């Protein structure tokens, strides 16, 4: 038995702040004992890809933890990502640990690599990959983090004559 929760703060996304799931997380009870087992989130891998994509389109610079999250969702080691964007791996490591600030070009290069790698893994995302090119950064308030809201969206699978569901994420910046 499952019960869909109106709002659920997912703390195990791999980010230092929770991600808000709207009408998507399910409280699950044991089929025979009826005991509440815990919370299930459908398609956690696709969810992570949708959140990582949304962060790529966030108009403020990425924090170290956000860069690390995006890299992990991409399934790349630090050395692999650094090589992909022509960056020294030690620089990437310091960036991920908030010990070094990199230029906007490096920030954007990582986002472009991520969008290319992740766009097919989050097919329900409403973000348009081509928009990353025109992204301009605005200052990020000190010690702030964005609010990320995610919801399940349905689309028609013509071949299967059924509805398929996927994740779409939106980043809301702190005022």
């Amino acid at each position, binding site marked *: 038995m499952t019960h869909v929760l109106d709002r659920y703060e997912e703390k*195990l996304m*791999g980010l230092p702040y929770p991600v808000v799931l709207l009408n998507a997380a399910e409280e699950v009870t044991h*089929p025979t004992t009826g005991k509440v*087992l*815990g919370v*299930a989130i459908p398609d956690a891998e696709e969810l992570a890809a949708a959140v990582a994509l949304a962060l790529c389109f966030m108009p403020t610079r990425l924090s170290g933890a956000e860069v690390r999250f995006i*890299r992990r969702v991409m399934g790349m080691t630090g050395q692999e990502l650094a090589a992909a964007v022509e960056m020294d791996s030690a620089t990437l490591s310091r960036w991920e640990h908030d010990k070094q600030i990199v230029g906007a070009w490096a920030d954007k290069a990582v986002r472009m690599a991520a969008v290319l790698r992740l766009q097919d893994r989050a097919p329900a995302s409403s973000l348009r990959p081509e928009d990353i090119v025109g992204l301009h950064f605005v200052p990020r308030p000190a010690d702030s983090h964005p609010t990320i809201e995610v919801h399940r969206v349905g689309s028609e699978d013509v071949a299967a004559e059924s509805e398929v569901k996927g994740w779409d994420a939106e980043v809301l910046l702190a005022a």
Partner: protein
Amino acid sequence: MYRQETTKLRMITRSPTFRMVLTDHAEERMAEYDLARFEVEKVLKAGAVVMIDMEASGTETWRVAGRDADGKRIEVVIEPLPPSMAVVVTVIRVG
């Protein structure tokens, strides 16, 4: 590796209605080891059953081996609930 159980696990995780449920204990271990939900789900979808245990309550659990996003070895202990559910009992970092 337990081939038969690994095959059963694939059938569970490939179900369109597959659900991975985390117990409170599993959530605590994942936070301690800095593991994300998607990494544990990935292990269940691609890993191999390497141990089978029977708890005192009669519940059978499978230990599934795989790697996190950084390539480090982890093992995920689950209670399989066919046809489409797996309850994650705990998560262990190996080495």
